[in-house]
């Protein structure tokens, strides 16, 4: 199954969840937020399964004014 993660194409196993992709993308245990197709996914919903062509944004804290 092909999805987009942070703007890049990625092939993930069928049935992958938001949490699976987060784990593959960042080792940070906290301070992470996820948007799926432009909508915020609360951590409690990270078990949600992804679909073909989903757009996932995985964001973390960065220096900023």
């Amino acid at each position, binding site marked *: 199954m092909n999805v987009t993660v942070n703007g890049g194409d990625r092939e993930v196993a069928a049935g992958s969840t938001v949490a699976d992709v987060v784990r593959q993308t*960042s080792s940070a245990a906290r301070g992470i937020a996820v*948007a799926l197709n432009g909508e*915020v996914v609360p951590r409690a919903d990270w078990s949600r399964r992804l679909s073909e062509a989903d757009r996932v944004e995985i*964001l*973390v804290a*960065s*220096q*900023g*004014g």
Partner: protein
Amino acid sequence: MADAFTVDGVTLPSRLILGTGGAPSHAAAEAAIRASGTGLVTVALRRVDPTATGSILDVVDRCGVRLLPNTAGCFTAAQAIRTAHLAREAFGTDWVKLEVIGDERTLLPDAVELLAAAEKLVADGFTVWPYTNDDPILARRLADAGCAVVMPLGSPIGTGLGIRNPHNIALITEAATVPVVLDAGIGTASDAALAMELGCSAVLAASAITRAADPAVMAEAMRHAVHAGRLAYLAGRIPRRHHAEASTAFEGMGEL
């Protein structure tokens, strides 16, 4: 604490807020945070950088300061609202520094989008710190919309041009119903002192500190400037006069 700076029921230990953007390293950011004496620092949300080592969150934890997530880089209310919600998920805080900019050349706030985003975020339960123009009317509208503070700019972000329109900042502070935090444009310590003398409750400085040749020393300078400016404001400055007024009495002078 006498003369406390309190927002949303939280008393902050300093009237200086530090923006971490622009620091050459996490170590430099940490040194600046410590030297500044601040209790509140801003952070942004960005895509995971696989090459990054360590996190600004670790720095924030070690320094024992609070986080103020920002919505930097957002051009529309919708984008800023979504970013604020993501920040709340990521950092577990309702506080947000709301930035909705109009273009990349000036990075000036887009007043229409800003007010719309502020209204929605207040309704969504956020404690909103809006970065705004030095416009007294817009500042009033933001306060009326329920923002916890208003954050007028001194001059555009990163310019270091100081406070270009001190009269407007004074108009904002004298009518304010919420704390006024001078945000953006600070170049050096005297700019921060002026902001406080004009009646601002606090100053936010990022580039002026993080991009100084020695960020930690500039952070210390800002700390003293904010404190000095605040004391001067509370003390009440003398009026400006056109002609001299002797401080030594002429009365009793000898005939020489």
